[in-house]
């Protein structure tokens, strides 16, 4: 059994100094195996996105141990090796692309920073891989729809050929029909490239669809862990999880 790609021990993340200190994450343990798709579910304020940000080096104050593929992380600085291995897709497609950079510029810069050569060919390949045609290459973000922007964000994340992808609510800002496309895309990419996903969402159905194992967070702590099969069967230990499952019930059967 290969070593887990991500190991988190007693992670605590806080903002500010006492007496205004806010503890967003209050001691979380997490292990994600290579090639696995792991979900973090919770409502707003549960700390789930904060864990991703701490991983990415975007949280200023944290304690505990985070190990990614054998490399221990410290503070907010991240090594080049880390950037090659771990990438992130953000929630808001309207904020994750620089408004003055074309798609081509975004991908070219990313490839350059990742030390990749053969930039032109790689850009063309990336656009194909995420289902955008070559016609999108020179568009500005305001000429793209939400779903298209998110595809560009995925392409950017894949440019460096990472092993672990952090997904922060990648479809919550998208329409239902577009969400289905992006979820399918993510599933396909994971199957094709053997990627590992750590996905955060408030939507249980989305997590249940894309993830194999999940952890439920509330108030900065993990209150429940289960796998997708148990989730679908409604077999949850904690009452909070059962409450979430109930709230996400579908009232409509399939149509057509």
């Amino acid at each position, binding site marked *: 059994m290969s070593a887990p790609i991500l190991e988190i021990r007693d992670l605590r993340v806080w903002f500010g100094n006492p007496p205004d200190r806010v503890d967003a994450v209050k001691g979380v343990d997490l292990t994600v195996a290579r090639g696995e798709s792991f979900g973090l579910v919770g409502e707003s304020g549960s700390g789930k996105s904060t864990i991703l940000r701490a991983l990415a080096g975007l949280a200023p104050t944290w304690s505990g141990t985070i190990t990614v593929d054998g490399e221990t992380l410290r503070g907010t600085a991240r090594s080049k090796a880390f950037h090659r291995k771990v990438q992130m897709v953000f929630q808001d497609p309207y904020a994750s692309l620089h408004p003055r950079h074309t798609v081509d510029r975004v991908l070219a810069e990313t490839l350059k920073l990742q030390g990749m050569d053969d930039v032109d060919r790689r850009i063309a390949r990336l656009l194909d891989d995420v289902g955008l045609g070559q016609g999108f290459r020179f568009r500005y973000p305001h000429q793209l729809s939400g779903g298209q922007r998110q595809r560009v964000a995925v392409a950017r994340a894949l440019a460096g050929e990472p092993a672990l992808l952090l997904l922060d609510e990648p479809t919550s800002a998208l329409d239902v029909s577009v969400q289905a496309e992006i979820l*399918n895309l993510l599933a396909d990419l994971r199957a094709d490239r053997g990627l590992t996903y750590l996905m955060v969402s408030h939507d249980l159905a*989305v997590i249940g669809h894309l993830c194999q194992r999940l952890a439920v967070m509330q108030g900065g702590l993990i209150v429940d862990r289960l796998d997708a099969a148990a989730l679908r069967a409604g077999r949850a230990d904690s009452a909070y999880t059962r409450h979430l499952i109930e709230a996400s019930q579908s009232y409509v059967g399939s149509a057509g």
Partner: protein
Amino acid sequence: MSAPLLLVRDLRVAFPTRQGVFEAVRGVSFDLGRERLGVVGESGSGKSMTGRAILGLVRPPGRVTAQRMELDGQSILNLPERQMRAIRGRRISMVMQDPKFSLNPVMRVGDQIVEAYRQQTGAGRATARTRAMEMLEAVRIREPERVFGAYPHEVSGGMGQRIMIAMMLASGPEILIADEPTSALDVSVRTEVLRIMDDLVRDRGMGLIFISHDLNLVAQFCDRVLIMYAGRVVETLAARDLHAARHPYTQGLLNSLPRLDAPVERLAVLERRPEWKDGPLDPALVDASMIDAFPGGVR
């Protein structure tokens, strides 16, 4: 058979752009009785614009036209602003998505309700205050005194939305338009807020137009549903019949949702067909929006 509360025929909202005229709403017709009507669509479907057009909130250069738009038999189409002000808030109210943005951040909550109520009914301050407290209790806020004196940033999202509902229903309007009222709220709070809204609407015999992108939610809380696509109503049906939807867009929307109880390998992707946008509408699917078929609402 009573006349509908709200009657809309061939509503159109158009905006001039550099590339020509863009029609956000292209001929929407429906009746609203004392029932809960859901309007479902994705972004760009024109559902929010429909709500705003009814309230006269579409500013120039946007243009609203319709064959008829009547509230209790009286035309409210393109009324002069002064007359529209008498209707807005008093006879038709609107609850919007995020209480963070619809509540005035520098005024205490109670004062806002009082001000809104006084402006709509011309009542005195003492009467308005009593009424505000009544409404806060009606939306099941446990400590109405404390909340009355609180600022919007001191209350949670769910409570903020309940305050909005209290404010909008204080003057006893006949119709409530709720535009994505729970989209900014946590999942566990959503049901409660909707239930409160639902009870109030039913107790007062109001009509409710519930605009949302969330089919599930609408199915749960509405009697009838209009499905909108590219500015038109493509299907109308009773909420309990949603699973038997016949228009391919509605079916596509339902099937593309991931579901815990019906897992799939790949989600069905909606294949948009141009005839949904520009082709003729199936009268069998759409005419049922007229109140002849659904007098006074269903359920």
